[in-house]
């Protein structure tokens, strides 16, 4: 029974790491293929630098906050 436990552990190691490596290796290939296809056919301008998120800067500011800021600044300018 106990040696079967060891055997189960070995099975997990073998099939587990096998699956992880197989899956991620496949993902490397598929990702490269995807990027190549997408960038060829989508033919879109390269607008984003790697490492910068799609949602940066003022894009995540909600309109009402942006409006409030604008209002505050207008007011500030008017007050001078």
């Amino acid at each position, binding site marked *: 029974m106990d040696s079967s436990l060891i055997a189960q*552990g070995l099975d997990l190691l073998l099939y587990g790491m096998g699956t992880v490596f197989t899956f991620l290796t496949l993902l490397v290939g598929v990702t490269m293929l995807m990027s190549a296809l997408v960038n060829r056919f989508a033919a879109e301008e390269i*607008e*984003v630098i*790697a490492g910068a998120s799609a949602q940066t800067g003022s894009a995540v500011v909600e309109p009402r906050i942006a409006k409030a800021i604008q209002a505050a600044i207008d007011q500030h300018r008017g007050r001078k």
Partner: protein
Amino acid sequence: MDNLISLWASSGIAQLQLGQLVMMSVGLGLLFLAIKKGFEPLLLVPIGFGTILANIPGAGFDAVPVYDALGNMESPGGLLYYIYHAGIETGLFPLIIFMGVGAMTDFGPLLANPKTLLLGAAAQVGIFTTVLGAVGLSHFGILDFSIRDAASIGIIGGADGPTAIFVTSKLAPDLLGAIAVAAYSYMALVPIIQPPIMRALTTPAERGIKMEQLRPVTKAERIVFPLTLLVLVAMLLPDAAPLLGMFCFGNLMRECGVVNRLSDTTQNALINIVTIFLGLGVGSKMSAEKFLNAETMGILALGAVAFCIGTASGVLMAKLMNSLSTNKVNPLIGAAGVSAVPMAARVANKVGLEANPQNFLLMHAMGPNVAGVIGSAVAAGVMINLVSGM
């Protein structure tokens, strides 16, 4: 007088068992680590507090609701009872958090250099060797772990809290407290655990390797990637689909650019609410009988081993890749493959700067770092599949 006796009998002191007292101290200790030492406070503050609440004698935070024969409630359950059964036993909270993590994840560095996925794969060796260690301890009669326990312990090496909680709540719910605490504690200790291993396995020249700047990544790639990953998971490894499916969903909301209000709520209100309740619910499993035993010591020891082996495997995999390719990677970024986002990537950057003050590895390390999240979710899926059939 009877009332006085009733009040005394229901007081904490009169009912207090030693185990509860110790567990309340454990809870205070976790709060100390979280608040004073900065150990993953977002989770450890709720877990620590939940530990204290669950161990207050007579407070009934864990009480089971009682219904009469007609289904009317006679007495309600405790707060932690409801949280645990609605959110953790069902797996909902870890999955919602994974959605939120997906919405906060930037796959840009990974897309710019997909080979770093292999580093994320290698670091999962820590998971499976730890499983072996746990069954070994059991085999030699030192501790008593079933294969389900061993699999849950191994997943600590994934360095990913929600994954560990998801797997453990399915395979070994009694160990949930110990495993969650170990997972989050070691994630916080990454800056202490990893650097010696990284230095031991690399030469100064290797640590100084400069990597070429990452190529720009298009918006279209970012949108298509989570869908690609989802389809691959669906075809090959459906057991990993709950975790990776929600992860990809969050990421797609983030990147598609047309549902920013949903993405924003997912990254803020929703993940915050679920984090609070997840932490409290985990804390509710921190009872003396489940935590104060030799197995917990074993779990903590094995968890540390898992982190070390994962780190080493990542670094060695990077060296192996270098020996097979002319396009060199700095082996330090292999250590980031354990995930522990973004801590492990920062550690790689820091150790790299020691070797070469002009060498910024942070962006390069983010690739294996998020690959590690995918890697441990895959490992979780295969583990659940195999162990369920054993």
